[in-house]
């Protein structure tokens, strides 16, 4: 088993967000997480990404408690994509060289160009300022920033929300291609067409428990 959430609870000062969540994810699964707003869908993804820790319960990755794995090493394998990503630095290039920088590897410009072409952006985008990009273009750049190095698990937090149909199609095509390359996917979505095509649906109730 790749990922195992065991009796996971999460609460902030006074509010219980998640309660007694148990979820098992195998290598090669594509799981779609649905539920009403405020039911804790994004919280589950952030917990799995180890950006926050459960108040109670344990998350196991390849049978190891994720709190015992070096955070940076773990997060390179379990990659979290935000709903409204922030591009950093000044240009698109700053964002796409960062995954190499953090791994202390030489930047592979060829690979960056290839990835850009996969999301219908040409090399001229590299020097574009982040402020010049549309929402859809930003999301595409952010997504390939996560995928330049193939993760084991891809956590997608409503990444197609608010995108035009073209961008949505491009993003979904890229995600599917990574799924075919054996990347496990856990996505949160409200998109009806995405839900209708989902393989496994997991529903969160309003009280933060799993159905």
């Amino acid at each position, binding site marked *: 088993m790749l990922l195992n959430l065991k009796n996971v609870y999460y609460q902030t000062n006074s509010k219980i967000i998640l309660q007694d969540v148990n979820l098992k994810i195998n290598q090669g699964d594509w799981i779609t997480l649905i539920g009403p707003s405020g039911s804790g869908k994004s919280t589950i993804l952030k917990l799995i990404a180890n*950006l926050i820790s459960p108040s109670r319960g344990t998350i196991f990755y390849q049978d190891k408690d994720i709190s015992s794995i070096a955070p940076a090493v773990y*997060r390179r394998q379990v990659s979290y994509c935000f709903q409204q990503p922030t591009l950093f630095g000044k240009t698109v290039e700053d964002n796409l060289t960062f995954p190499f920088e953090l791994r202390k590897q030489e930047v592979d410009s060829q690979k960056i160009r290839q990835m850009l072409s996969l999301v219908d952006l040409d090399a001229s985008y590299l020097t574009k300022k982040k402020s010049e990009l549309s929402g859809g273009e930003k999301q595409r750049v952010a997504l390939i920033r996560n995928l330049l190095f193939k993760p084991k698990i891809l956590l997608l937090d409503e990444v197609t929300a608010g995108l035009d149909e073209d961008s949505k199609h491009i993003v979904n095509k890229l995600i599917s291609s990574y799924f075919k390359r054996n990347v496990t996917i856990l996505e949160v979505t409200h998109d009806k067409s995405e839900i209708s095509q989902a393989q496994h649906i997991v529903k969160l109730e309003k009280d933060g428990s799993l159905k």
Partner: protein
Amino acid sequence: MNNLAISNWSLIFAFALVLVAMGISFKEKLGLTKDIVISVLRAVIQLAIVGYVLRFILHVNNLILTLIATLIIIFNASWNANNRNPNKNRKLWNSIVAILVGTYLTLAVLILTKAIKPVPMQVIPITGMIAGNEMVAIGLCYKALDTSFHDLEQEVLERLALGSDIKLACVPILRRSIKTAMQPTIDSAKTVGLVNLPGMMSGLIFAGVNPVNAIKYQIMITFMLLAATSLGAVISCYLAYRNYFNNEDQLVLY
């Protein structure tokens, strides 16, 4: 030196200047009257004690006593700098290390280059100047760190989510904070002599030293403060940003 003696009566009359500040506070309903009274009382008591203590230390001229005096200055500066840190997870030792290293390194260079002599009359006032400026710079650094972490929270989270270590995730924040901390010292170096005649130089001129010689000291002070505030800001910043993360390298903001 006789024209430097200030009588107690002169001081009492100078107190009228404090009444001006209190009058403004009262008239404009600033609610600062109590604060002004407390600050004036503290200033008078603290300076009176320091005056007698310094007279004793300068008279005894003992290395250990001088060292203790500098450590007390460093601790007080660190305590105050730490109190300016808005982070709930602040740690006093961060400020102590930053000010201690910044002050002693700068002092060592000044003594080794014979810019100052290792005597209490020179070491103690210079320590006060260095630690005081570092205290202000570090306080600014802490405030900038806190504001930046709140402003750039999403960016830090994205960098962490990509698998960055916390230091790399914070590079923009560290740069911004160190820059903020050093800016006043750099600005004041740009305008020194044009806008303000700094304390050291004014003091020497007051004491009858030739202004050209007084300027040499002021140039040394300018160099010294640039070095000390950079050291203090860099060290405190690199220590204090870690307080925004828990053991699992998760960003914790309150």
